């Protein structure tokens, strides 16, 4: 792999997690997760439903306090120096975490001003993002009335608006139609080509296999495998590796006979 010459200051890993642990009541949701995301990589976090992907990413970006462990973003400790870490970070949270009673343009303006950007920059970037993502710069529909794909796209636009060095996306392709998915893919690939780092969670193998250069597989809160994609899958398909690692089962002929 011919990595482009990296700029000073990006030598450190874009995201480093050290022994993250989280309990919910008595259930252990995430157990001792440690991993390094190299700067400039496209990193896929894989796992079945309930594996702890969202919990891990929430702890990594400062939304959920870990019971133990540390998280570093671009070299800054998220829990000790949140302001410095968060200034260089863009997040697309899972599901509904948007102020969805605003219109798309209003939501982008809100995020821009919240990040301390000046008005002309916010207006110009917001218009450009709305045009590129085909959301319409003059659209006055409330985000709550958007389709699922449009919600993902406006969430992505909010995360990109302040030109962060690291993007953390929770299930960016879930419930997105193929056309929107292709558009989001192109934007993310351009972002990585420009030197940014993307970390995203998914349980769709095809997407991960096509986009990522690094993957990590999480199940039952434990990190099972991680590293460069080619190293993780070897000469098999990623899906085979995933099902084997996670310990899934296959339905035999005699079960569900009544179907």
């Amino acid at each position: 792999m011919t990595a482009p010459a990296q700029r000073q200051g990006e030598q450190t890993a874009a995201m480093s997690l050290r022994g993250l642990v989280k309990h919910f009541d008595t259930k252990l949701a995430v157990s001792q997760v440690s991993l390094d995301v190299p700067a400039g990589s496209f990193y896929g976090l894989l796992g079945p439903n309930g594996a702890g992907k969202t919990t891990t990413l929430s702890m990594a970006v400062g939304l959920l306090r870990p019971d133990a462990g540390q998280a570093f973003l671009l070299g800054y400790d998220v829990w000790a120096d949140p302001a410095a870490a968060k200034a260089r970070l863009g997040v697309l949270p899972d599901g509904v975490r948007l102020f969805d009673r605003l219109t798309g343009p209003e939501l982008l303006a809100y995020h821009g001003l919240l990040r301390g950007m000046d008005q002309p920059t916010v207006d110009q970037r917001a218009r450009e993002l709305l045009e590129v993502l085909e959301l319409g710069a003059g659209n006055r529909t409330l985000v709550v009335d958007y389709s699922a794909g449009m919600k993902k796209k406006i969430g992505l636009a909010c995360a990109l608006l302040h030109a962060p060095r690291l993007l953390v996306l929770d299930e960016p392709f879930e419930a997105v139609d193929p056309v929107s998915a292709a558009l989001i893919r192109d934007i993310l690939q351009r972002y990585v080509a420009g030197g940014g780092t993307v970390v995203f969670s998914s349980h769709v193998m095809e997407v991960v296999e096509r986009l990522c250069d690094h993957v990590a597989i999480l199940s039952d809160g434990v990190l099972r495998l991680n590293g460069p994609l080619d190293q993780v899958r070897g000469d098999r398909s990623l899906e085979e590796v995933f099902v084997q690692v996670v310990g899934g089962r296959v339905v035999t002929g005699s079960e569900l006979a009544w179907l």
Partner: protein
Amino acid sequence: MTGRAVTGRAVTAQAVTAQPGVPPFVRLKLRLLANGLRGRPARIALFVAGVVVSGIFAIIGYAIFAIPGVAHRPGAAAILLPLGGAAIVLGWLFLPLVFFGVDESLDPARFALLPLRRRTLIRGLFAAAIAGLPALATLAATAGMVQTAAQLGGFPAALGELVGVLAGLLLCVALSRAVTSAFATGLRSRRSRDLAAIALAMFAAAIGPLQLAVLAGAQRADWGAVGTVAEVVGWTPVGAPYGIGLEIAAGRWWAAPLKLLIALAAIGGLLRWWSATLENAMIGTVASDRRGAVTDRDPVELLLLPRMPRSRFGALVSREVRYWWRETRRRASLITFTMAGLFLPISLTVSSGSPGAMVIFVGALAALGLANQFGFDSSAYAANITAGVPGRAEIGSRAAAHAIYTLPLLVAVSIVVGALSGHPARIPSTFGLLIAAYGVGLGFVLPASVRAAYAFPASSNPFAMSSGGGLTKGLLAFGVLLGAIVVSLPLQIVALLLGSVWLWIGLPVGVAYGTAAFLIGSGIAADLLDRRAPELLAAVTPNR
């Protein structure tokens, strides 16, 4: 073709015969309550507190309603039972709207896909609504009326009153469900939202004169007048069920079935009304009519209110101001406060003439709108954490946005109070007192909103609370009101001591007092928020 129709009918017939009764709904509700408590000591403590409060209410209520019987005073009973019963019914109507919300652990929308007939569903939800602490406490309190009837008229009267008390309980629950559901439906569809507000206002206005008559009569010790009012109330649906036993005791056997009929008709009508609005709640929300509207203004201009600074603070305040109107829960809280804020002082000013205590109550009530301000945002609050908004800016902007709505209302309240009490000179000092109470209220509410936040259920009913949520809300509201009234008391005493001087210095002193309290409270809240933002997010995120 015909064969198909026949099988279709056969399937329907089978489904109809298999309709469940009431017990599964009640069991489901109790199971949800138990699961909500399991492994959560704080919730268990709250639940126990709720049991204690309900128990105290039940004992006091029972004692009051049993006194006329024990003392053998049929005249007092004829006044107390219908009026007391009516007060309880009205409490069931207004307390959920203003303070508690309705326990919607059984969200009707969840049943939309099940093959249930509407009658089955209504019966089940109604039974589940009765299975709860408030209904139990009400039943225990009104049981005092049965004792009174027994003392005055023996077994037949006691039996009649028991039937009446049970009917009264059904009436209370049906009324609170029907009205909150109808109000919620009205608020949801943007076209008719003002209609709901007006309907409620008219209802409140209709209660006003009645209340005035009773208060005026009681003040002049004119029991004849009160008796007449009680007689009239006793024939309205809200008082009728509670008078059945007394009619039997007094030998008017013909009146007992008539009053029962009035109560049952009211219950039936309310259940029909509830059933009609429930249909609407199950189908879902009405889409907004803004679709397709296009503008070419800049995004920042669209977000910010006129004359707001082009900064983070401006963005926070503008977003909050838009949310107070665009989100149904917040709009419902604003509208109910407007109603309560205007009608409480009006009715008390007209009747007694000294609105001081009520003014403090209204000011503190205004602050209560922010008691669960982060709960309104739910998980969307994550955006502000990710952007690293400091606690001071977060708390300050939220209070500022709320004040933009509240201050004009408080001005209106002080003008109304001043004008009605015939002392226009009192308007500035009344406003000063209101501001002081509002500031003190905020001083209590802001830290509480960070420390005691809770998640609203993902229901479309803005009054819906999850199991135990209503209790948290009610206890929080009670604590804040009590605290605000106690802390504002010195000001009230000073006002009384100074007399006419107060008219001149009331406004600046009140504003200074309120501002100081607000600054202290918001400082504490901001520090708390800086330390606990992730915990707060977890607390307001549903289902975690």
